[in-house]
């Protein structure tokens, strides 16, 4: 018995005009929630609907309007987005390295560099949240992926929390580091961006910028943000140690080959 082909009955995604998907192609369904600093009232509901229209929603429906506190109303709104995106023209900034396993990375270092690669990691500035840097560097690693300390050909050191940029660069010189991993968790008032840019400026002044691979990571860090701040790469939430190791070793090899 041949299987009947019904695929022509379902619309395919139009990559030239990409829209959010609810349960029918191109329905554009979007959910948004926010708080308005006015009490719950019919006027508040109307204000929420009008805001949704301004966001580009058709048929905005208020799914919930709740009293969140005196003078504050909380909204959940569903609507159909008017806008579409040409997906075929999208260019994303992303890290180009291939993710390898620990042994492959160790082999690559041994064969291509023939020496241990020195990596220093730290939470810089006033940031005291070491969860991220610990997951990447410490032996145990993260989600079943061993940390950099475990790699035979990496000399990885976790300097811990609240390391000043000056201090980190001093250590980098002292230990002849190949790469620095900077973890930023606290983001209030964009303190993470200020700290990151400051590190690059200081590295520049010391003539270290091109001698180091500078990598940052954190829940609010993207590769694009990292590049904007002058880093070589940025890793977001859920990054495994092997992804970081793969990038930095491949980058080192690339730089070495350029010199040759």
């Amino acid at each position, binding site marked *: 018995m041949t299987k009947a082909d019904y695929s022509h009955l379902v619309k395919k995604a139009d990559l030239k005009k990409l829209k959010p998907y609810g349960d029918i192609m191109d329905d554009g369904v979007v959910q948004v929630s926010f708080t308005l600093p006015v009490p719950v009232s019919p006027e508040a509901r109307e204000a929420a609907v009008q805001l949704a229209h301004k966001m580009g929603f058709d048929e905005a429906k208020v799914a919930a309007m709740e009293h969140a506190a005196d003078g504050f109303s909380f909204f959940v709104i569903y609507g159909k987005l008017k806008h579409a995106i040409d997906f075929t023209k999208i260019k994303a900034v992303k890290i180009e390295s291939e993710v390898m396993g620990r042994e492959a990375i160790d082999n690559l270092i041994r064969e291509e560099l023939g020496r241990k690669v020195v990596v220093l990691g730290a939470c810089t500035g006033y940031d005291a949240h070491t*969860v991220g840097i610990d997951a990447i560097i410490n032996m145990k690693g993260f989600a079943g992926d061993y940390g950099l300390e475990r790699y035979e050909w990496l000399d990885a050191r976790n300097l811990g929390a609240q390391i000043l940029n000056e201090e980190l660069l001093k250590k980098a010189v002292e230990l002849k580091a190949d790469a620095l991993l900077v973890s930023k968790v606290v983001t209030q008032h964009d303190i993470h961006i200020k700290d990151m840019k400051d590190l690059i400026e200081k590295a520049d002044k010391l003539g270290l910028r091109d001698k180091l691979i500078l990598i940052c990571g954190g829940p609010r860090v993207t590769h694009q943000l990292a590049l904007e701040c002058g880093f070589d790469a940025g890793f977001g939430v859920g990054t495994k140690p092997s992804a970081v190791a793969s990038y930095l070793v491949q980058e080192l090899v690339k730089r070495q080959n350029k010199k040759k």
Partner: protein
Amino acid sequence: MAHLELNQQTIIECRRLAAQIVEKVKPTIDANTTVSIERAVLRLIGVEGAMMKAGQKHPAVNFIVDQLRADHVLAKGALHWFVNGMLQTESSPAGLARKVCGGELRLSALPASPAAEIRKLSHELARKAVEAIVLRREERNELCRKLKDPFDLTFQGKPLLYVIVATGNIFEDVIQARAAAEAGAEAIAVIRSTAQSLLDYVPEGATTEGFGGTYATQENFRIMRAALDEEGKKLGRYVRLTNYCSGLCMSEIAAMAGLERLDFLLNDAMYGILFRDINMKRTLIDQHFSRLIISRAGIVIHTGEDNYLTTADAIENGHQVLASQFINERFALEAHMKEEQMGLGHAAEMNPWHPDVLLLEIARAQMTRDIFPKSPIKFMPPTRHKVGDIFFSHLMDATFNLVGVLTNQGIQLLGMPTEAMHTPLLQDRWMSIKNANYIFGAARGLGKEITYKRDGVIASHGKKVLDDTLQLLRKIHTDGLFKAIEDKAFANVSRTLTGGKGLDGVIQKDKEYLNPFFELL
């Protein structure tokens, strides 16, 4: 109420070991004072305010204590010199502080009054300070009597709902805190600005700028206290206020909290050592004096063992948490605290995808409840495995709330759907409170309906953690606390006796060291 059948002999042995571990560091605590203790003493007798120095507000107590230290006379106690100054110049504490800070006189250079007179006036001032703290405690008791007090120390109903605010601006914090209280929050914690614990002074005045939180200052304490009192009257229930008594200014924060009627303080005997790299001696000396004040102020401490679970694996490291709780309990008893004042901390930080994870979380929570039956256990929410999927995070918090109410934890710090993204928005907090209200209401009788299977997963895990704890305490007992911390007994962190920040602020007491608070508190 469902309980685990834990080996009582093991528990007794753990407590005995903890007592001896603490006993061995007591000589270090008793022989020394710190700049923070000396500043706290001055604050307690009424020295307030700040002077401008290099464009920054510099607290008067820092100026006075730093000067005494520079003159190499602090070993006799700041009070000795300060009270001598009061006698010599016939000044009030505030008046003398102004003169010293204004450069009119130097305390160490004044003629000496008879020792007996200094001692007498010191005692009088200290006694008045203790009275002031006791008065604030009685005021709390009175308010709790008049209004409804949701803090259930019989642990039969539901945990106290506790949320944080952290805008950086104390006036914005007030708006958030009042909104949270109205939604159902029963305790509000004002998160401190990142790394305030490493400042060796307490900032002054009302503050509107902070990173990841709001500076703890005496004026900020007053502002939030007044707002919550007002909100509490409106709601007909007492709303508790929390701040952080850790770091280099532990003792001072305790003094300020006592004077401003804070109800809860995050205060851990070892947190600063492990997670802020503050020197061991400094921390242990400071924590003792801070807890003497806290004890008398009727404040409930919250210990920081949750941090062990965010830095090391939560399933494997339950015994580190429990060992630390035993040690924290012992240090608190040394400062005359009652068990009812010990909010021993832990957290639900296990990997949500681990098989039977709910059973393991129940095991640890129930075990903690049963080992410390009179203490209001502080249960902290999942953070480590939250990554930004707010819907899943909200579900994790629901499970966490279920464990909390089932096992009758004392204080539940509510998790936020937007953990790992930003400090909570008003709507995040509102959602979390609604989540807790629902589950606490729906399941508050559950613990009374069930029993744990004798050799089931829950009972076995509880037993294992307790047995492992005994082994760890034995090792710490053999090595001594200082050496054990050096060898990573807690949170896989190593610290040394002479390492870390703040050791230069430790001063060996002179045999004539004067500080009547040690007797009066």
